[in-house]
């Protein structure tokens, strides 16, 4: 322990920063671990279908899977491009 450390106690330690990062990460990974395994494929196939009709980018679709005690919810979000962009 260095003497100088007494004067910089207000600065967040790197350990607490690590803990914070881990909390976010682990929570996120737990969620995705419980997801059905077909989701990435579903996302890909939906995108292919939509791209047949609308000019959208690879990240136009987001899928969220949520699970409550008695129900599972699949949330699908498609971002369509602006009308002007589409006509270009």
């Amino acid at each position, binding site marked *: *322990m*260095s*003497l*100088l*450390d007494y004067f910089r106690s207000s600065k967040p330690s*790197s*350990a607490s*920063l*690590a803990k914070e*990062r881990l909390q*976010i*990460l682990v929570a*996120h*990974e737990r969620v*995705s*671990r419980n997801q059905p395994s077909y989701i*990435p*494929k579903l996302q*890909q196939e939906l995108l292919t279908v939509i791209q047949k009709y609308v000019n959208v980018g*690879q*990240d136009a679709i987001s899928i969220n899977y949520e699970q409550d005690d008695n129900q599972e919810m699949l949330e699908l979000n498609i971002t369509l491009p602006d009308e002007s962009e589409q006509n270009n």
Partner: protein
Amino acid sequence: MARIIVVTSGKGGVGKTTTSAAIAMGLAKKGHKTAVIDFDVGLRNLDLIMGCERRVIYDLINVINGEASLRQALIKDKRCNQLFILPASQTRDKDALTKEGIGKILEELAKDFKYIVCDSPAGIERGANLAMYFADDAFVVTNPEIASVRDSDRMLGILASKSRRSENDEEAIKEYLLLTRYSPKRVKIGEMLSVEDVQDILSLHLLGVIPESKSVLNASNSGTPVILNEESNAGQAYADVVARYLGEDKPHRFIDEEKKGLFRKIFGSK
């Protein structure tokens, strides 16, 4: 021509990922376009050490399976625009890795990048074998400790026989030794194998000695490759390693115990 570097060791926990992150950042900071790939499928950590864990959308396996393009999966580093990270998948297992898939990815990367750093998982299974298969250079990360030295030796044997270069009868992979977590103090009192001891066993070109340092843990905690901490011994040691790899003549440091001045003795050092 791109150079493919594998960072390997056989044994776990010796500092492969820390080293991969540091040298990739070091090469990129010298102006070379560099990609660093995590081969530890199922147990990815490179993203954490690089501090980009929240920006991972697609991964290596997605690219192999054609679910995403290489461009989509590569994460551009926020601190250095010459550095890109390709994370491993956390949810799949290592069987998803294929030699053809990796070969295609490396071939594509080679068109655009100067250096490709492959962060090998521990062990001698598929991930580790594929990480080294296409390599031009191997950084063998070793701790001055008996199990690590033996495993490194074993890994060197595998490098000599199970690589693309050996199968095609090309010039062998260039092997370099990186001695990490070195404590001159413990070497001095006879608790730890010395650089000479390890060199005696492995007979390998020494690229650098990275001293045991608090800054390494601090760096991982905050997701900053330790090489960016220019004040720390470990950061400087990695900078030397990169310079030596690029052909600069740098004398070895951090092998002998450093004499502390009176002021630093009182106030401690970083």
